[in-house]
Every structure is written in C-alpha cells, then in structure tokens.
C-alpha cells in the first residue's frame, strides 16, 4: 500500500536548532528551506539542486512561505517584522519592513486564500489586513499565559474558515493538551471570539501525548502507549483509537500527513537504538511500511510534499520518495490484523458518572474500548443487525467503519439483494430492472447496495465467500445493477473503477456456471456487460488518441495533420 524509496540528502543543515522549516514554492516541484536565522534556500526536489536562495541580516524567526495570492515570498523577521518579496535576486535587507506590535508566531499559507498571520498570543489575521493594521493590532492575550501554541492548522467547514490550535500548558506537573478551534472571519482573518471551542485532550489512563498533528479537519494525537486517537473538528467528536506498530512512543514522535489515508511517523525504533520512519494507514489501522534510519532526532520536523517526505536529520535534510496506493490487496493485509493485547486495565470510577469519550452506539462502545480493529468490530456487530433486519442500523454502522471484512460485505450484499427482491422481475426486461433500481420505495435499499459496492476489499479473500453464499441470479442482478449505475448515473471515477472490479469479480466467481448454463438471461446480462466494456475501451482509446493532440495544443505546438497514406489522391505536381 505504501512503499518508501531510498533516502537522499536534500541539503546539509548548518545548525539543527535554528532550522525553521520547509514550505512549498510556487512550483510544486520546488521547496523553500528556511535553514536558520539568515539563510533561505530554494531546492528542486527532482534532482536536489539548489536553484536559488536569499540571505538576510535580520534574524528569520519562522519558515518562509510562498503566498500564491500575492505571488510573493513572505518571511517573518525578529518575530515582529514581515517582509514580502518576489524575485530571486532581491536583497532581503533592502525590503520594506512591516513592523508589528505583537509577536508573530508564524505565517501559514491557506489554499486559494490569503495567508494567515498567527500571533504568539493566539490572535490571527489575514496577511493584507494584518499589515494594514499592524500598529493597532490587539496585543491582548487570547490564550492563557501558561499555554503555548504547538501546532496550527486551518480548515473549512460549511464555507466557514476555521483555525485550530493545539495548546500545551505547563501549569501542572503533567503536560495538558487542548484543542482550540475558532471561526475566522472572511477577508479580515481575525478570530470570532464568540465562537471559541476548547476541547480537552485527555484519557483516563495514565498516559501522555508524544506527537500531534492537525491536518485539515482531523487532529491526531499519539500517546505513549502507542495508541493513536483522532479528533474530527467538524463533527466535534473523537473517532477512535488504533495502535501504531514498530515505533517507540516513549520519546517524541513527529507526524505528517502522507495523503491517501496515510500518516507518516518518525520516531525512535522499538529498541531505542535508532530511528524509524513508519507509514500508517489510519483507516485500516495498520502500518503499511517502515524504513529504518540511523539517527533519531527529537522533535524532527517532518513534511510531505509532492510525493516526497522531507525529514530533518541530525546534520542534513533528508528526502524519501514514496508511493501510496489505496487498493487493498492481500499482501498488504497479511499479518496486519493481529490484535495487540491491550494491557491497560480500565480503572473503574465508581460513583461519579463518566462522560463517554467516544459518542458511538452502545453496541460498539464496549468493543471500541477493547481496542479491537474495525474488522473485528464489524464481524461482530453487522451479522446481528442483519438478523434483526435493521436497515437503518446497518447504514449507521457502515458509515462508522471503513475496514469491513469481506465475509460481512458478502452477507450484506446478499441481504441487500434479498430485500430488493429481484427475483420478482426478469433481468432481461430492461424497464423492469430500471424501475426496480430507481423506484422511490427501494431508495434506501438501493443506497445500501451502492454503498456496499464502494467498499474496498481484497478479491482473493472475497471470492470464496461469494461462491459460498451468493446465487447466480443474485450475481446476474448485481451485474445488471452495476451496468445501470455506470450507464445512467454520474459517479466518481474511483467508484466507477471499483464497479468494474466488481464485474470482474463476479465474472471470476461464477465463471463455470456461466459456461455451463445455457440460460438466456446469462447470455443477455453478459452481453450487456460486454457492450459496456467495449464502449469503455473505445472511449479509452479515443482519449488515448486525443491526449497527445491536446498536449500539443496546450504547449502551443501546431498539430500536424498526419493523414494516413490513402490509397487514392489527386495531387498537383510540377512535372
């Protein structure tokens, strides 16, 4: 599912304590490395060449970013000054300075919006607004004095921009963490203070946080017992807890988002004699890949740009290219579902009513706390619900989980087909199938079926289940249904590709039956599927032919009208 390639050195690090961070440049391909107090360099990731850079007499105090809206580089100097510049050759000491009264923590770029200035006191402002009002800007503390902002992220919910801080307070013996979210006003970019929500990060056990990350609307915390908890900022709920393998959680772990449901973690290895880089699938709760390294760096900065992991090493910045795939295959699941024995005993709290940490259904709750994987949970819960014929319940539970065992998928499919009852109609009757699939009364059942087909699975595992508990007529209906969905509905490309996978799977499963039966229905349905496939292939071929032409047009090249040498032409020739 994920694979790391070999490790390169992007650039040497002068002083690892003063290293400030890495950000993306204008082109995805390049990165801005803010090396220390005075140096910013630009590197190309593909060949690790330095392609530009600036030096400054003033101390740089936060990583330089590229602001796509103003099309300029933004840097923070001496904690209170912002400078903006555009070109390679610019002298940073001669730029106009925008001095603020409050100390600036950092500037964060936002997607398709102005960048945000984050002040150390917890306030923030959009870049142009902040610069305009830099003299008068509020310097009042927004967070408690004992608290420091350790992680900042912005996200979007219902067209409203939010900012999220992870605060760490040192007031008591134990470090306490809190998530603070607050709406950000349009344009101005300052906080709507009426809308502040604080969420305590705590567990009943005697554990502490060793790593944290804000990625869009998700906040990840890694605890010292290797458990990873996720807080969803939109639903304001704690999602679940999974165990992270291969990494020691007794010291700090750096986290970054890899994309495609994967986290990367960098920390000390379990023997604590070296470091390790781990890719972790948060949906399946399994480690996808690990990469051992020599030296562990505490609080190493970790990033992920343009299919490459950027990691702060002891005296250099390293780069690790990777590949991630979402498809689930057998090999990636092998051995990943071992249940790690949970040694933590739950301390019963008699008397005082406890607020459940995870607001999930009662059935799930008990199982959750045992630290079972999603697969195990599903396998226990869903068959019960099917027995009860609880369609709503099934849908709810399914929404909760992403990793559903193949056996459950098959029994759910059988169930869905059973309740739709396609035996009442003839699959060769187009209108009847159409009616059945798109009638109002069946809407919910059809939704279930559609949802089921989106779930990823491993085909090697699913085939025996299908053979055991699926009927030929069910398969025929399912194929007709898939053909209808592909033909008549607008669906996402990932879903469509999954539907084709299902077709292949159904073909494989009932291959011999198809061959043996001389049923007209089988021929009809397979013929329908064949037509669909042929039209897909035709379309792909068309795209294939069109692509180079489009590419040429985009690059402003004239498209040569290469005509095949026809067998008959009349030409004007000087003879």
């Amino acid at each position, binding site marked *: 599912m994920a694979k790391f390639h070999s490790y390169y050195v992007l650039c040497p690090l002068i002083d690892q304590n003063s290293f400030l961070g890495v950000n993306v440049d204008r082109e995805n391909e390049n990165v801005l490395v803010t090396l220390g107090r005075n140096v910013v360099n630009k590197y190309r990731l593909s060949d690790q060449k330095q392609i530009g850079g600036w030096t400054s007499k003033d101390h740089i105090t936060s990583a330089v970013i590229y602001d796509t809206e103003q099309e300029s580089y933004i840097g923070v100097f001496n904690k209170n000054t912002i400078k903006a510049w555009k070109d390679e050759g610019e002298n940073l000491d001669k730029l106009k300075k925008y001095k603020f009264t409050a100390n600036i923590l950092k500037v964060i770029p936002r997607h398709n919006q102005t960048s945000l200035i984050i002040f150390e006191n917890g306030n923030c402002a959009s870049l142009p607004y902040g610069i305009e009002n830099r003299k008068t800007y509020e310097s009042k503390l927004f967070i408690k004095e004992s608290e420091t902002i350790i992680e900042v992220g912005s996200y979007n919910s219902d067209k409203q921009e939010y900012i999220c801080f992870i605060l760490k307070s040192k007031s008591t013996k134990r470090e306490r963490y809190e998530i603070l979210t607050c709406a950000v006003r349009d344009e101005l970019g300052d906080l709507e203070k009426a809308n502040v929500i604080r969420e305590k990060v705590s567990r009943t056990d005697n554990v502490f946080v060793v790593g944290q990350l804000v990625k869009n609307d998700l906040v990840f915390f890694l605890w010292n017992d290797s458990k990873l908890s996720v807080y969803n900022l939109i639903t304001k709920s704690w999602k679940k807890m999974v165990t992270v393998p291969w990494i020691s959680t007794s010291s700090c772990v750096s986290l970054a988002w890899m994309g495609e449901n994967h986290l990367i973690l960098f920390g000390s290895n379990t023997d604590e004699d070296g470091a390790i880089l781990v890719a972790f699938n948060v949906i399946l709760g399994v480690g996808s890949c690990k990469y051992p390294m020599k030296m562990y760096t505490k609080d190493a900065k970790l990033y992920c740009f343009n299919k490459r992991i950027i990691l702060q090493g002891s005296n250099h910045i390293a780069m690790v290219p990777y590949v991630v795939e979402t498809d689930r295959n057998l090999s990636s699941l092998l051995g990943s579902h071992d249940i790690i024995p949970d040694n933590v005993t739950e301390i019963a709290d008699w008397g005082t009513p406890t607020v459940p940490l995870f607001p999930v259904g009662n059935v799930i709750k008990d199982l959750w706390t045992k630290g079972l994987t999603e697969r195990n949970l599903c396998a226990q819960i869903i068959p019960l619900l099917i027995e009860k014929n609880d369609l709503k319940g099934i849908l709810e539970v399914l929404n909760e989980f992403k990793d559903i065992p193949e056996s459950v998928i098959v029994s759910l499919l059988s169930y869905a087909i059973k309740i739709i009852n396609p035996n009442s109609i003839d699959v060769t009757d187009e209108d009847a199938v159409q009616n059945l699939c798109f009638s109002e009364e069946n809407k919910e059942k059809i939704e279930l079926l559609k949802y089921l087909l989106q779930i990823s699975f491993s085909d090697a595992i699913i085939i025996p289940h299908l053979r055991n508990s699926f009927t030929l007529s069910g398969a025929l209906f399912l194929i007709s249904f898939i053909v209808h969905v592909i033909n008549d509905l607008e669906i996402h490309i990932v879903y469509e590709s999954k539907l084709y996978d299902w077709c292949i799977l159904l073909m494989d499963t009932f291959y011999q039956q198809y061959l043996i039966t001389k049923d007209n229905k089988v021929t009809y349905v397979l013929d329908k599927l064949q037509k669909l496939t042929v039209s897909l292939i035709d379309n792909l071929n068309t795209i294939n032919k069109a692509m180079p032409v489009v590419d040429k047009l985009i690059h402003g090249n004239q498209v040569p009208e290469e*005509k095949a*040498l*026809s067998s*008959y*032409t*009349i030409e*004007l020739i000087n*003879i």
Partner: protein
Amino acid sequence: METKVHKFRFYNPKPISIQCVSYEKRLKLLAVARKDASIEIWDVNYSPYLIQVIPGAENASVEALAWVNNRLLSTGLGGALVEWDLEYLSIKNSVMLTGFAAWCLDVDNTKTLAAVGTEQGYVNLYSVSDGNIEYKRLFDKQEGRILCCKFNKTGNILVTGSIDTIRLWNANTGHATCRISCNRRGREVIVWDIGILSDNTIVSGDSLGRLTFWDGNTGDQVESFLSHKADILSLVISEDETYLYCSGIDPVINMFKKIVNADNPSETRWVKNIQRNIHEHDVRALVINDRRLISLGADGYVTLSSYPPKEVMRIPPMIPMPRTSVSAAKKLLLLRYNNHLEIWKLGSYATDDNGQVIINAGIKQRPNKHNNKEIEKDTELPIISKSKFEEREKSLEITEEPIKMASILAKSKKQILCCDISPSGEFIVYSTDTHVRMLKMDEDQGNVSLQKLNVNELKSCNRVLFSEDSQMMVASRASDLFVLHVDVDVGATLQQKIPTRKYLKEGSILHIILSTQTPNGIYLAAANTTGEIAVWLKKTKKFEYLLNLPKYHCVPCAMVIHDMILFISYVDQEFMQYDLAEQKLMGSGSKSIPCWGQRKMAAHSIVPHPTREALLFTDETALWVLDKHKIPEYYEPEVKRRPDIESSSRVNIMPVKYLAGFHWLTNSEAVLIEILPEKIVMQLPPIMHKKKHNMVISK
C-alpha cells in the same frame, strides 16, 4: 503549369518468392525461377532489365536452373530435366530422370555435362553438348536425397551434398571417391549448398548455420565457421576463388576472404570479412555479377549490392512491363495481375464555381517509416535527394473515388503474358501462352458488360498494343509481328503478318511500338532481345519495311516514337534519338546530361510530355523528366546551388517508391500507379528468422 496527378495505390499484385537462380557468366544473363514456376530472364550487363518471362503453371515446380551457353535447363519436383525454348517461351525438350523429384542441377565448365541430384539418391548425368540432352550415366545410388551438386572446374569431379553427408564422385566412372560425414554430435545436418575450389577444397553451408571447409582429398574438416544463426541456404564463390558470400534463413550476407600467408604463400586461410544486412526474408540464391552481388530470396526482390562503395539497389517484385495501360477518353485503367485483370474507373476532383480546383491545405503525406532500422536502405542518388520537387504536396479534394469496374480472370487461370486496353476504352485484349482473348466492354449506368470477341489466326502473343484510333492491334509472337484490324462486330481479323527474321536476326521480340498518325503514315518499330531495332511504315494499307537502326551493344529498355523521332533508352543509360523522316541518327543525348549517368535503374517506359518538349522516363523508383531545353527559372530553388548541379537543370527527378506505371490522361492530368514497399512486405510470408533483442528466435 501543374499537373493533376492521380496517385493510384490500389494496385498490389502479390509478390512471388524466388526459388532458384542461374547465372550465365558470359552473356550475363540471370535466370530466376519463382515459386509459381515462372522463369524470368534478366539482362544484368548494365542496369538489370527483365527481358523474358516464361509463364509458370499450376502445380509445376522449378527447383534448379542451369545455363548451357544460351540454352536454359531446369529441373524440379516433377522429376524431369527440361530445356526451354527461349524464342517461343515454351518447353523445347524434356527427359525423365531416374530417382523421382530432382533437387539440384549443375552444368560443368565446358558446358557438356549436366548432373541432376534426385530424391532417391541417384545422380543423373546427361551430355548437353550440341544442343541435345543425352543420357550418359547414372551414378551409384546413395542413401537419402541429394540436395546440391557442383562440378569442379575441370569437370572430372562432382561433389554432392545431402543430409549428414557430402560425397565426392568421379564424374567419369560414377563412383564415389570420398564420403564426408558432417553430422554433429548426433544432430541431423542438412547440407543445403556446396562449392568446390580448384584445389579440391569443398565449402559447405548447412542447416546449423555453419560454413565449413573440407579437404576434398582426405575428407578432413579444414575450418568451420558458425557464421549464421539459422540455415545457410546459399553460397557463392568468386571466379578467382579469393572470396565467397553466404546467406540463408538468417538473411545476413557474410563475406569470407582468402588470406595468403605472406611468408609462406602455400598457407592460406579463410576469414570472415564484411557482413551485409539487406534482407529480412530468407536469401535463397547469391550471384556474383562483376563487382556486384545479386541476392534473391523469399521476398521476391532482386537486390544488388556492392562494397565498396557500399550501395544497395532493390528491384521490387512486380508484374513484368507493360503492366498497366489507360484509356484516356474514358479515364479507365487496366491493371495486369498474375492471372487476372482489373479495370478501374478513375476518380475525379472537385472544382469551385470558377472552375478552379479545390486544394486541401498542404498536407504532406508521408509513407510509414520502415520499422526495421537495421536493414540497409536503398542507396539514394545524391541528385534525387536534391530533387527540385516541392516538399509540400497539394492534394485536391476528391469528389468521386475510383471504382473497380471489372475483374477478368484469365482463361483456365493461366498466367497473363500481355494485355492492353484500347484508347477508346472499348476493347480489352490479353493473352496467355495458349489463348488470346479480346473483350468488348460496355458501361451502361454503372452496369458493366463484357462481351467476348473473336480473334482470328492468332494463338497467343507476348506483346500486344492498340493503335491510337483503336482500330488496329499489333501483336508479336516469337519473331513474328501480327497486324490485326479491330471491329466491334467482327472482332480482330489478321491483316498482315510480318516475319521479322530478316531484320531482327536473333532472339525474340522485346518491344513493339506504334506511332500516332503522322504525315508519312504510321510507324511501327520493334526491338529484340539482342538489341536490334527495325522500323516499318504504313503509308496506306500495309506496313512496309523501312529501315534498321544501327545496332547498339546492349538491350533497349524503352522506346517511343514522338513527332517522327524514335527515342530509345538503353540499359546502360544511353539514350538515342533517330529521326525517322530524315532517316538519320540525331545522336545520343546522355553524355551531355551530367547526372544521367548516375541512373541505376533501367527505364521501363518513355512518355512524351504533352505540352512541353520534354520526355518522362519511368523506372521502379523514380520519374525522370528530361527537358529538351533548359528548364525555366521557376523550377530552380532559391538557394544557391553548386555549379555542377546547375548544369543538371534539364533533368527533374521525382522519387516514387515504387512506380508501377505512369500515363497521361489529358494535357494537364496524369495517372501514376504506385506500389508502396510496405504493401509488398505485407503480402510476403512471415519472416522465418527473427532478430529480437539480439537473441535469435527461429520459428
């Protein structure tokens, strides 16, 4: 003014593989037998030129050919030794052999003995002196078929190759003197071709791709080279025995050279010299023709190569000339195939309201690039690459596509020898070796009807053509000319038979041409295979002998009468003009045209330009336009040119690969029949031996 040229690419006769070859060193004639048992005789004195074709027959086979001076012998799976009549292009004499199917044939140096190797292991020895074929002796029977045989230079030793074995025979007694076993570790080895040197060294090429030298006296192996990755089918040793070429299913041609030790001249070694990669298909035969190597094989091409200078020239397998003819009046095109004819009606182009042609924006049509990069390309003439023809072709919008109107299968599916369509488009005539057929074609609103007409007193012919007014037809058979009158109702009736033996002393008729109606009458010129040309004139009723042209030393490859001047192009690229009215030679032109001598291909037709004083020479690869006067300025490219090319401006060359025919339709319209090389390759059998990532896979 620009000419509207119909480029017609629907003519793709199936190429036929070459089976075997024999080369007459003195006359420089090459006999080539194809898979369909037809035999072609090529004159290779200068540019190779096909002079005669003996039609093949169904189920016939020619496995080996041999020349006895100017007599041609062949043998095949039919088990007979056949002598061919090269005048009537038919069998002259045939004797049955002992031992069923015959695989090989060789004639000794003195041209008195012919040895034939047969399936059952008998070597048949015949005496072939004095124009006879007389049984002389049967050699002792050996086990297994005899696949190749060769006489030594003195003719007293015959060496034969068969499966696992090479034998030396005393040709006088018929007893084997030496047997060489050449199987290798129990693997069966087929000796496909063999050669013997003056010092009795035997050279063999076998199915393992080995070229082996044996001592003919002791039967020991002297040297062996694994020169090919698949069977060696052919080898040829030079006259002075200093070098040899070999090739086969692995179509690389390897040259081996004899190296003499400078200190000890009696010590010699053979070493591998150069390697040529000019074929994709099996090479079945190799011939050394002076400095050129002629290689022939399954691809049907006649390929000439030389080194140095490193050059390659390929003559594509095509139906012999004349293969196409047109009726300009009805825009009909007659195409000749091996045993059928096709009649096509040409398409037409769009014109706008002002009568101007509509030009599709300059789309340069490029033929698909040949994908095998390793194969050596045809050597291009430097002048062709500097050709003045515009790169940008202007193609016209086509309103009507060409239509195939009729396909005529020859009587009893025999090979067609010649055909013509009358200029009026009414009559079509063709001949096989036994029948002449004339058909009248009527077209009524797309319905085509063909009606057979009688042809009296003419059994078959090798050349036939209609006069300009479509009322006369001239045909030739061996050394006789037949003039027939053509009538819609009666058919063709013989008007006059002209025996030409008196004027054309040797050989058979190669070309006949008719002039248009001139003030003096109609001229008829005929040339024979030895290069003699005679002219007849029809003033009123009959053709009268007029004159014989001075004999030139080589064969004319194309002739035309235009404005009472007879133009002749010879295979050595010489080009003559003879004024028929004044009856005097106007001299040759070619020396004064600088780049003319660089031509490699023999012209296969000369077409006068309808509007300019210019002649068009066609060959398989190009159309050469020769202007009588210097070509006006606008033909010259704007860039500065070197002076030597400046003087060539009387010549304009248009490369066409491959040009099958060119005819004028009107003053500004012409048709050009083109056969693309890939169309030929497409119809060939798949390649037996493939080179893939440097690994050799034999199918």
